[in-house]
C-alpha cells in the first residue's frame, strides 16, 4: 500500500464518519460543524486527485459561504438548538434499503469497469489545469452553454431573493 492510498483511506473514513455525525447529531450547530468537516474531507480528496484548484474552490464556496450560511440560518431561526423527538420515522427501513441498493449497484458497476483497478497516469509537468478548465468553460466546443445556463439560474435565484426581501412601500 502506498502512502497516498493510506492517506485516502484515512481521509475517506474521517469524511464518512463526519457525514454520519451530520445526520445523527442532536445539536444543530454541531451538525453544521460536522458538515464543515465532511466538506473539508472532500476537499482533501480533490487534492489527492491533483485538483488543487477545485479543492480550494470547494473550501471557499462550501465552507466559506454555504456552511456559514447554514450556521447563520440556524442561529437566527431556531430558539432551541437541540432537536427533540425520534430521529427516524417509520420509513427508515425503506431508506436503508435504497441506500444499500445504491451502494451495491455502484460497487458492482465499478468492479466491472477496467479503470477501477488501474493507477492513474502521472500528470506531465507544466500541465495547466486551471487554463484547461477555463477553456472548457468558455469555449463553444466545451461547456459554455451549460455554464451560461447555470449562471442565469443563479441570477434568477438572486433576483427572486431580492424581490422577496424588498420592502414594498
Amino acid at each position, binding site marked *: 500500500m502506498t502512502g497516498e492510498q493510506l492517506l485516502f483511506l484515512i481521509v475517506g473514513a474521517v469524511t464518512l464518519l463526519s457525514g454520519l455525525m451530520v445526520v445523527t447529531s442532536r445539536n444543530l450547530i*454541531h451538525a453544521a460543524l460536522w458538515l*464543515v468537516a465532511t466538506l473539508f474531507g472532500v476537499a482533501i480528496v480533490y487534492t489527492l486527485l491533483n485538483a*488543487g*484548484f477545485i479543492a*480550494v474552490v470547494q473550501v471557499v464556496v462550501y465552507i*466559506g459561504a454555504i*456552511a*456559514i450560511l447554514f450556521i447563520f440560518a440556524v*442561529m437566527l431561526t431556531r430558539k432551541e438548538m437541540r432537536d427533540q423527538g425520534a430521529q427516524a420515522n417509520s420509513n427508515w427501513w425503506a431508506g436503508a434499503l435504497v441506500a444499500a441498493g445504491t451502494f451495491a449497484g455502484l460497487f458492482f458497476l465499478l468492479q466491472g469497469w477496467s479503470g477501477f483497478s488501474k493507477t492513474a497516469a502521472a500528470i506531465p509537468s507544466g500541465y495547466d489545469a*486551471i487554463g484547461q478548465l477555463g477553456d472548457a468553460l468558455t469555449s463553444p466546443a466545451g461547456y459554455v452553454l451549460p455554464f451560461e445556463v447555470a449562471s442565469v439560474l443563479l441570477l434568477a435565484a438572486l433576483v427572486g431573493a431580492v424581490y422577496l426581501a424588498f420592502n414594498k412601500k
Partner: protein
Amino acid sequence: MNFWNDPLKVAADWLMGIFTGWGMNAVAAQVLVAFLGVLMLITILMVLDIFLVWIERKVVARFQDRIGPNRVGPFGLIQPFADIIKLIIKEDTTPADADKVVYNIAPLLSMMSVLILWAVVPLAPVILGVDLNAGILFIIAAGSIGTLSIIMAGWSSNNKFSVIGAFRQVAVMVSFEIPMLATLLIPTIFSGSMGMNAIIQGQSIWYVLLSPLAALIFLIAAIAELGRAPFDLAEGESELVSGYNIEYSGMKFGMFYAGELLHAFTFGGFWSILFFGGYRFFGLELVSPFLAIAVILFKAMVGYWVIMWVKYTMMRIRIDQMLAFNWKFLTPVAFVLVMVTALMNALLRGAPGWLFVSGMILSNIIVAWAALEIVRSVSKKERERIEGPKRVVEAHH
C-alpha cells in the same frame, strides 16, 4: 548547487541523506523532512509573532504620543515575554453552559487559519512552501476558516455579547471577501497566473503602478478581513465589551490576539506580494535568497505599518455604514475595475511599456473619479431629501 543559492533544497537533501542512511523508507523520510520544514516555518513565525506584540505596542504608543513598553530589557524588548508568562499563568476559565469542545477548538482554528496562509507565501524564488496554481484563492479559503473560528468562538461562549460580536465580524468578513476577490483578479490579469511566485515574477513594473486603485481596495478589504479599525465593530469595546473573544482568558485569548497580529503582518506581506513586487527589489533577489527574504520581510513590515497607521488614526464606523460602504461602493467599483482592467489589458497587449502603464493608470483614475462623482451626487440627493432643499440665506442685508 550550494547552500547559499538554494538553502531549502540543500538542507532537505542533507536531511534525506541522513534519514535514509538510518535505513528509513524513502517515502517516510520525505514526509518527515516536509514535516520538519513546516515545523521550522511555524516556529519562526511564532517567534516573530512574539516580537510583533512589541512592535504593535511601540507603534501605537508613538501614534498616541507615548513611549510604550520601555522598562523590561533594552527598549522594552523583553516585555512580550512578560506578557506571555502572564497569559500562561492566568486562570483558564470556561463559562457555564459553554459548548466545551467547540469553545476549545475555536482559538486553535483561528491561529491555524493564519499560519496556513504561509504555505503559499514565496519568501524567495526558491524558498516557498508550495507554489499552488490557485495561490490567491487560497487566501480567501484560509479566510473562510478564520470566519468559521470566529462564529464558533462567539456561539460556544454562551454569551450574548460574543454572539453579537461574532455576527458582526462574520458579516464584515463575508461581505469584504467579494471586493477582495475581485481585486485579487487584477494581478492575475497582469501576470496570467494565480500562483504567487508567477505574480511576483511578472512584476517588472510593480502592479501598484499599473493599478493603484486595486491596491487601495485590496488594503481596505484586508483591513476589514482582519477586523481592525475602522472595521473593528466586532470588538466595539464601548458596546460589546470585547466581542467574540469576551469569554476567553489566558492563553486562549492570547491565541486570538497573536493570531490577529500575525494576520495583519501576513496581509502586509500579501499586499507587498500582489502589488509591490514581493521579494523583488532591483535585482537584489537574484544575488542571494537570504537578501530576497530580507526584502519581502521589510516590505511586509511596511505593509503592516500602514495597517497599524490606519488602525490608530481612524474612528470605528457603524455596521450599517460598513455594509453600505461595501455593497454600494467598494464591490461595484471593484467589479468595474476588473472589467476595465481586463479590457485595457486586451487592448494594450502589444503596446510599448510606457503606453501600457499610462493607459492603465488613466483607466484607474477614470474609474475612481466616476465612482466618487456618482457617490457625491447620490449623497447630495440624500442630504436634500433629509434636510429639505437648500435655501439661499443672505448673510448680510
